[in-house]
Every structure is written in structure tokens, then in C-alpha cells.
């Protein structure tokens, strides 16, 4: 993470896990169609770490240089020890962020978080209409989210709203921003869906057109110039419509570390999809070993592992060949260039996906919502083959 700032900021040392994401549980009362959790999460819902194990993980990561802490899931509030985790995080000097759907946030809990030193709360919102909120999350959570937003504000927290954008709400960007403004939001992240996990399976049903995205960006810019700095709006551009891939996670094993519910340590959210990887688990190895020495974290550091066209590409420092998971999911080869890149020999799979998303027949296929039942089908049942269908290569 190099932040240039009129010479004020120096570049941050690249080998520390500055961001620790604690995915404390895969359990979730919502069933979002775009959820980035692995489709086979049902395999990983057992053996959740204990409070003591989390606290140890926080201490160890802090020693390695971690400073930003995300507490996420699933829905983290399904655990009743988030209060203890927050207190410890504050003691250790983390800047901590609770990432929640709002379900389970009560007056009592938010007060405990505030007293414990939680720095901010990021709430997911979905739409201005009850209908789409409830459809895309497959739950009745619309009214609740509004109440939670007010509660966050009342307790003096900055209001950080995260809105995942897809075909069903992209036409409502202006109204969504107006709602955010009236709720008193300080930061709004309009995050175009990235296609991993459940959103990949539902890609044709969720992906908007290029024109829709361009229009949404224009509306966002107009809104931004009207509200000025009182509400910061981030528009996360979807990579499928770019010529070059994103520098995924700022580089594999560079600044991010994820500890999952059962203690596996991952370099990114969806790394579990990669074949032949053995992820370190904090119950067996320390976090220090995981970050510094584990074969998994070292596997895609630097550029030695790259193939052509990336190996000799003059731009390789910029994007480090893109996302390993996306490369594997779409080409079947984890070391290939991210097919988002127009120089990738597999770039056609992206163009095809964009075409497919315009196909009314594919658009109207039923959505696979993120439910335990569906996840079990991905583990052993009739949906197991579906993920493989997304590979372009044999």
C-alpha cells in the first residue's frame, strides 16, 4: 500500500500484513445472491475458533505489523464474543471495523462496542426498495437495516455504507445515494459485484451492461460534485469491463491476511478455490510461520511464478498479472494471466461472459442463493459440477 500524499506519506513496507480480516463465522442469516463466501462454505462451518484462539491470533498478527482489523463473516454478530474481541483489539492498538449486515445489532451490543473501542461499523445496504433488498438477500431485512443505520449514527459512529451493485439495483444509484445522504452517511462504497463464490455462479443473472455501469458512474460523479466532501463516495469499477486486471489484494501475501472461522490463514477471500494448496491453520502453525514461511503465502509473491504474456510484460509491476483466483476460475490455470487483461490469450472468456449477461434466457435462470442447503449441494450434491463449467480450458 503506497499512499502518495504531497510527500507526507512514505511508502509502507510491503512485507507486513497491515490488514487482518477476521472472518469469524461463515454462518449468516442472509442469503445474498452475490455473496463472495466460497460456495462450499458448508464444509468450513464446523470447528470455529474459540474466543481465546481469536485473541491469540490478534496478538500474533499485531506483532507482525497488522494494524487495520476487519471483523467479518458470514455475519460476525452471530457470535456473542465480538465484544471481547473488540476490547482486545483496542488494547492492542488496532483500528477496528465491524462489517455487518446489521442483523443482530442491538442497543446493548453497540454500546458495548463503543465502550470497548470499536472504531467503526460498516453496514451493507442493498437498495431503496424493500422488494429488491428482500429479493437479493432472500430475507426480510429492509426495515431493520434502516433502523440499524440510525442506531450507528446515534452512537456517534461514522456511517460507512457498503452497497454491492448488480443488475437489480444499478438503475437506482441516484436514489441509493439520496437515501445514504438522508441517513447521514459519511462514507458510501458502491462496490460493483466481483465474480467469485456465489456471484460467479449467478453471474449471468447479476451482471449489468457496460452502458449501465457507465451511466451509474456518471450519476455518481454528479452526486459527488453536489454533496462535496461531507459524504465520501467510492465507486469500485468492475474489472470485467477494464482492459487490465486489478492488482488483486495489492499483491499476494503483500499486505492482507485473512483468518477464517476455523483458523485457516488465507492471502485472499477466495483463495480456497485454488487447486493443490494447503492453507496453514493457526491451530497447527503460528501466524508468523503462515505469513513468512508457509509455501502458500510464498507461492505467488514476486513475479518468478508468472507465465507469458506476463513474465516479460512491461506492465507486470502494475497489476502483478491480476487475480490468481479469477485466473483459475475462468481459465483452469492458476498461473495464467488474469483473463480480464486484453493481452491474455483467454480474454474471450470475459467477452463471452459479458455477452451471456445480455442473453435473456441466461438472465432469467433461477438464482442460487447462498444457503446452507445450496452450499451442501456444492460440496457433494448436484451443483458440484457447476463451478467447473466456468473454466474455459479443458
Amino acid at each position: 500500500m503506497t499512499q502518495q500524499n504531497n510527500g507526507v506519506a512514505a511508502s509502507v513496507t510491503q512485507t507486513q500484513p497491515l490488514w487482518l480480516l477476521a472472518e469469524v463465522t461463515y454462518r449468516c442469516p442472509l442469503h445474498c445472491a452475490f455473496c463472495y463466501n466460497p460456495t462450499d462454505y458448508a464444509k468450513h462451518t464446523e470447528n470455529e475458533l474459540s474466543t481465546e484462539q481469536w485473541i491469540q491470533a490478534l496478538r500474533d498478527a499485531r506483532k507482525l505489523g497488522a494494524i487495520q482489523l476487519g471483523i467479518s463473516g458470514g455475519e460476525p454478530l452471530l457470535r456473542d464474543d465480538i465484544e471481547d474481541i473488540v476490547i482486545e483489539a483496542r488494547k492492542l492498538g488496532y483500528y477496528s471495523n465491524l462489517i455487518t449486515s446489521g442483523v443482530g445489532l442491538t442497543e446493548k451490543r453497540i454500546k458495548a462496542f463503543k465502550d470497548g473501542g470499536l472504531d467503526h461499523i460498516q453496514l451493507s445496504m442493498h437498495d431503496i426498495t424493500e422488494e429488491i433488498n428482500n429479493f437479493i438477500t432472500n430475507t426480510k431485512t429492509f426495515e431493520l437495516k434502516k433502523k440499524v443505520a440510525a442506531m450507528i449514527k446515534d452512537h456517534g459512529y461514522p456511517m460507512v455504507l457498503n452497497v454491492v451493485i448488480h443488475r437489480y439495483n444499478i438503475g437506482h444509484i441516484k436514489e441509493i445515494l439520496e437515501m445514504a445522504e438522508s441517513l447521514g452517511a459519511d462514507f458510501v462504497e458502491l462496490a460493483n459485484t466481483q465474480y467469485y463464490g456465489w456471484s460467479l455462479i449467478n453471474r449471468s443473472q447479476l451482471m449489468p451492461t457496460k452502458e449501465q455501469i457507465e451511466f451509474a458512474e456518471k450519476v455518481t460523479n454528479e452526486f459527488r460534485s453536489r454533496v462535496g466532501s461531507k459524504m465520501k463516495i467510492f465507486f469500485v469499477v468492475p474489472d470485467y469491463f477494464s482492459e487490465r486486471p486489478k492488482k488483486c489484494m495489492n499483491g499476494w501475501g503483500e499486505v492482507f491476511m485473512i483468518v477464517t472461522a476455523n483458523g485457516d490463514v488465507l492471502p485472499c477471500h477466495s483463495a480456497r478455490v485454488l487447486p493443490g494448496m494447503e492453507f496453514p491453520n493457526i491451530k497447527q502453525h503460528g501466524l508468523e510461520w503462515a505469513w513468512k514461511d508457509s509455501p502458500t503465502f510464498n507461492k505467488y509473491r514476486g513475479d518468478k511464478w508468472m507465465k507469458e504474456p506476463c513474465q516479460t510484460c512491461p506492465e507486470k509491476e502494475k497489476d502483478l498479472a491480476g487475480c490468481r483466483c479469477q485466473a483459475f476460475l475462468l481459465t483452469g490455470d492458476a498461473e495464467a494471466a488474469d483473463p480480464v487483461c486484453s493481452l491474455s490469450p483467454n480474454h474471450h472468456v470475459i467477452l463471452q461472459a459479458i455477452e451471456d449477461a445480455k442473453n435473456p434466457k441466461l438472465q432469467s435462470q433461477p438464482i442460487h442463493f447462498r444457503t446452507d442447503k445450496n452450499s451442501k449441494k456444492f460440496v457433494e450434491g448436484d451443483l458440484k459440477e457447476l463451478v467447473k463449467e466456468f473454466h474455459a480450458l479443458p
Partner: protein
Amino acid sequence: MNNTEIYTLAPHYRFQWEEAQQSYVMLFPEGMIKLNGGAGEVIRRVDGKRSVDEIVHELKLAFPDVDDIESDVVAMIQLAVEKSWLVLAN
């Protein structure tokens, strides 16, 4: 900017020494900024009690060999206000 003004850290921002970075950092919802030595020395003194003038005075005493501390301090505080890290203390 009037140098008798007193600034303080904006709510939701945290400023702290980071051992692992060997520097001061500013933390906020979207990330963190690592401050270089001079910037850290200025921001560390912004506490809702000391005025800009007082900070300049202190730094002059602490770093007698550095020229033109005043304009550096003013520029740094102005930048920090622009970035919304600092706000006027009531």
C-alpha cells in the same frame, strides 16, 4: 489560517506511533497513512490545547538547526485540515 487557532484530531481518526513501521501513522475508515518524521512531530503536538503558534515555538526549541519551521508547520496543518484529519477545537 490564523496561528492563534487551536486544532484537534477529527473524530474517527486515530493517530499513533507504530512500532512495526517505526513511524507515526494516521488511521481512518478507508486506510492508513504513514507520516514522515517531520509530519509526525507536528501532528503529535496537535492536541486541542496548543495553538499553531505554540507548536511552532516548541518545534523551534526542539529542532534549533532547522530553518523556516513556521511555514512547514503551517503547511502541514493546512494539509491535514484539507484531508479532514484535523478540525478546529471548539
